[in-house]
């Protein structure tokens, strides 16, 4: 596939993520921050986000495994995940965090477990799509490098 076609494929793929509500405009702003001084910025931020998100989701899971859930501790983790989700433009994941926060406010353990399931699903979907996006980006960089 030639360079222009790859770039179009990437553009269309990101567009589809916006249309599905997986990403929102905040991700466009992150893309806009990538330039020649930060050529790998998008990949670095996505990697950072995914590492943190997985750690937090595991911590939430562990917390909800206890008989007596520490809801204030849980709230801290939810806050963190919602914050990073909204900052990277992960729209559906951000919304799923709002569900967990509400259940946590209500001290509803069962509700928290259900909300966590949704968060896990949304995160797995997002991660798969980010991996595909980064694969396209790397292919573009490789082609551009070969053409120089």
């Amino acid at each position, binding site marked *: 596939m030639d360079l*222009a076609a790859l770039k179009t494929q990437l553009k269309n793929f990101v567009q589809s993520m916006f249309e599905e509500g997986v990403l929102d405009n*905040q991700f*466009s702003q992150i893309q806009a921050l990538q330039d020649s001084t930060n050529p790998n910025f998008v990949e670095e931020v996505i990697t950072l986000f995914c590492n943190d998100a997985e750690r937090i989701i595991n911590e939430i899971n562990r917390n909800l495994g206890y008989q007596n859930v520490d809801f204030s501790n849980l709230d801290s983790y939810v806050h963190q995940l919602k*914050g990073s989700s909204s900052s990277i433009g992960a729209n559906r994941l951000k919304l799923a965090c*709002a569900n967990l926060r509400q259940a946590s406010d209500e001290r509803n353990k069962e509700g928290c477990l259900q909300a966590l399931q949704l968060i896990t699903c949304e995160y797995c979907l997002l991660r798969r799509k980010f991996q595909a996006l980064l694969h396209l980006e790397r292919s573009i960089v490789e082609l551009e490098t070969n053409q120089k």
Partner: protein
Amino acid sequence: MTPTLPSGDQASDQDNWDNGRLAHKRQLLTEIILRNRLTALVVDGDTTCRVLEQLLFHSYGVQTQGVDNGRDAIALIASGVKFNLIIIDMILSVLNGLEATRQIRDMGVHCKMLGVTACSGESERQAFLAAGVDVFIEKPLDPEHLVPILRELDGQ
């Protein structure tokens, strides 16, 4: 000399792509030119948020330092470092954002403080404003909120 046209569709697609991205970037980042050298402290326990916030400031030419908890923010300010703007998250480890804000104000720091949080509600807003922040916003920190503040600090 007769100007030469780009040869082939691929070259013009490349130019259109690069020009399109630059226009898109300008549109999204609302370019401003700062006359003064501004500095900002970003206090955010979440690494992704802190990196993005610092880079956003950097894109406007604002020098930043970042810390991930309230205690380190207090220590940095107590050491004499001055900032034009402090961005502080409500939920922080070691010393939370509300208490850190109170202590910063008690130290006689009068610079602009912007309180941020992932989960906003009226009670959070009131609490943060009462603690001493000037502005309260829900994450993400974006140009729409940041640019007017930078312009004000720059005296524009």
